[in-house]
C-alpha cells in the first residue's frame, strides 16, 4: 500500500459511508449491493453506464430517496431521519431537473438565498460561474452550459460541506464541458467534498481523485484512476516515426515492432510496466535512431471499464 493510501485511511475522515445499500423499483433491482466511503476534500466519482444504479445510489445518499436496505451515514447524519439538518449542509444538483421557464437567473438565486441561514456573496458567485451578464435572463433562454452553471451556483449558495453532482455535463458541447470541469476542480480546491456521477470516462479521469465503477447495481472496482489503470491495464505502447532503415530489426529486443498504417514510417511497440517507456528510449538512443515523432499511448479508464465488464460504457 503506498504511503498516500495509509494517510487516507488513518487521517482523513469519511464524510459518506454507505454499506450494503439496496433499492428496487417493483421487480427491477436498481441498486443491488453498494458499499463505499467518500473522504473529506476529495472528488469521488461513481461511474458506469446508464441504468447501472448511479443516480439511485446518489439520491439515497442525499436523502431524496428511501433505500430498501443497508446503512448510510452522511456527515455523521442519517439522510432520512436528519433530512432537514442535512439539507442545510449539502448541495444537490439533480440530473435533468429544470427550473421554471420564465424565472430570471437573479430570482432563482434570490429564492435559494432566502432558504439558508448562511449564504455566500452571490455577486461574486455569479461572477465566478460566468453568469453575471445573465442576471436578468429567463431560465429558458440560457444555453445548456449556462443552465448547468446556474444549477451549480444554486447548489453552492449555502457553502455546503458536500455537493452532489449528478451527470453534470451530459449533453454539453466539449467547450462548455471543460468550463464545468474547471469549476468542479475549483469547488474541491476550496475545501468542499464532491460526490459526482458520470458515464463519461474522460470526465472521471480528469476530475476524480477516486472512482467507483458500478454495474448492475454493484460496485465492481474502486480506487484512484491511476491505480485502476495500472492494475487492470498495465500495457502501454510507444509510437514513433523514423526514416532510418531497419528500425524494426534494431529494436527487436523490446518485443514485436509493428508498422503503422499504410506502411508509413510509423512504428508501434507494445509492452507493459512502468519501465517500458524508459527501456524504449534507452534502446533508441543506444542505436542512434533518428526519430521525427514520439509519443506514448497509455490505457485509460475506458479501457479498464471495457476489461472489467466486457463491453463499452455506451453499449
Amino acid at each position: 500500500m503506498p504511503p498516500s493510501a495509509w494517510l487516507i485511511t488513518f487521517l482523513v475522515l469519511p464524510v459518506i459511508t454507505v454499506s450494503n445499500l439496496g433499492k428496487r423499483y417493483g421487480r427491477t433491482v436498481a441498486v443491488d449491493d453498494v458499499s463505499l466511503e467518500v473522504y473529506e476534500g476529495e472528488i469521488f466519482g461513481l461511474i458506469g453506464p446508464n441504468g447501472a444504479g448511479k443516480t439511485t445510489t446518489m439520491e439515497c445518499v442525499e436523502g431524496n430517496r428511501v433505500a430498501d436496505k443497508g446503512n448510510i451515514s452522511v456527515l455523521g447524519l442519517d439522510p432520512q431521519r436528519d433530512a432537514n439538518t442535512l439539507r442545510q449542509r449539502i448541495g444537490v444538483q439533480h440530473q435533468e431537473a429544470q427550473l421554471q421557464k420564465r424565472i430570471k437567473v437573479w430570482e432563482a438565486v434570490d429564492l435559494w438565498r432566502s432558504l439558508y441561514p448562511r449564504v455566500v456573496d452571490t455577486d461574486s458567485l455569479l461572477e465566478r460561474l460566468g453568469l453575471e451578464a445573465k442576471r436578468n435572463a429567463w431560465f429558458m433562454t440560457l444555453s445548456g452550459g449556462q443552465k448547468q452553471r446556474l444549477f451549480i451556483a444554486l447548489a453552492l449558495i449555502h457553502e455546503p460541506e458536500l455537493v452532489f453532482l449528478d451527470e453534470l455535463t451530459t449533453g454539453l458541447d466539449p467547450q462548455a464541458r471543460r468550463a464545468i470541469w474547471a469549476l468542479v476542480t475549483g469547488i474541491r480546491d476550496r475545501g468542499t467534498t464532491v460526490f459526482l456521477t458520470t458515464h463519461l470516462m474522460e470526465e472521471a479521469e480528469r476530475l476524480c481523485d477516486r472512482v467507483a465503477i458500478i454495474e448492475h447495481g454493484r460496485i465492481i472496482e474502486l480506487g484512484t484512476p491511476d491505480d485502476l489503470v495500472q492494475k487492470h491495464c498495465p500495457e502501454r505502447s510507444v509510437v514513433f516515426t523514423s526514416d532510418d532503415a531497419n528500425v524494426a530489426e534494431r529494436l527487436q529486443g523490446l518485443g514485436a515492432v509493428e508498422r503503422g498504417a499504410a506502411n508509413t514510417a510509423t512504428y508501434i511497440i507494445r509492452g507493459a510496466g512502468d519501465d517500458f517507456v524508459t527501456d524504449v528510449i534507452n534502446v533508441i538512443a543506444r542505436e542512434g535512431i533518428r526519430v521525427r515523432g514520439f509519443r506514448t499511448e497509455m490505457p485509460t479508464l475506458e479501457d479498464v471499464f471495457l476489461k472489467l465488464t466486457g463491453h463499452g460504457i455506451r453499449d
Partner: protein
Amino acid sequence: MQRRILQGFWKLTWLETKIFTREPMGFVGTLLVPLILFIVLGRAFGASRPVATPAVDIPFNPAILAAVLIALSAVQSLVAIISIYREGGILKRLRATPLSPVTIMGAQVVVKLVFTVVSLALVMLAGRRLFPGVMSVNVFSFTAATLLGTFSILSLGFVLASLVPTARFAQPIGAAVLYPMLAVSGLFYPVERLPRALQAVAFLFPTTHAVSLLQGVWNGSGWSAHWLDVAALLVLFGAFTALSTRVFRWE
C-alpha cells in the same frame, strides 16, 4: 427558522405570481376569458333580470357562471402548472431544498387565489358599468364565496394533478372532470330535478356547493342559510387534500 420558512413562502409566492404574468396565454386566459364570457352572456341572456324569473326555472345568472368559470380556470391552470413542473423536474429540485412540501404547494394555491380575486374584480367592475342596477350583490360576500369555492375545488385539482401522467394530458383530463362537474352543478339545471344517482354524484362535487352558495349570496339569503354548503366545501377540501397527500407524485 420560523421566519425563514415564511420568508421562503412569500418569496416563492411572489416569484410564481411574476412568472405567471410572464406567460401571456395563461394570463389572458385566466383574466379575460371569464370576463368576455360574462359580458357576451350578460347581453344575450339579460343580466338585467337575473332573479326576476320564478325559482322553478333557475334564473341563468352570468355573474355566477363567470365566478365558477374563474374558479375552474384556476384549477385547470394549477393542474397544468403542477404537471409541467413535475415533468421538468422543477418539483424535484424545489423538494430538495429546505422548502417544505406545504410551502411549495401553498404558494401555488395563493397565486391562484390572488388571480381569482383580480379576475372576479374585473367581472364585478364590468357588471357595474354594463348592467347598472343589477350588481347590487354584496361584493365582499360574493368574493368570499367565490374564494371558498375555488379553494375547495383547488384541492380536487391536486388529486387531478396526481393522476395526470404527463403535461400533455393536463388539459384533456382536467376538462374531462371539470366540465361534467359544471354541467351538474345546478347552474344550468336545478340539482333537485336531476335523476337520483346524478344528484348523489353532484353532491360529491365541490362546484355544486359553490354554485348553491353563490346563488344564496346573490339572492341575499346569506351565509347562515347556506351553512351546509360551506360545511360541504370544507369537508370536501379536507377529503381531497387527504387523498392528494397519499397519491401525489413529485416526479
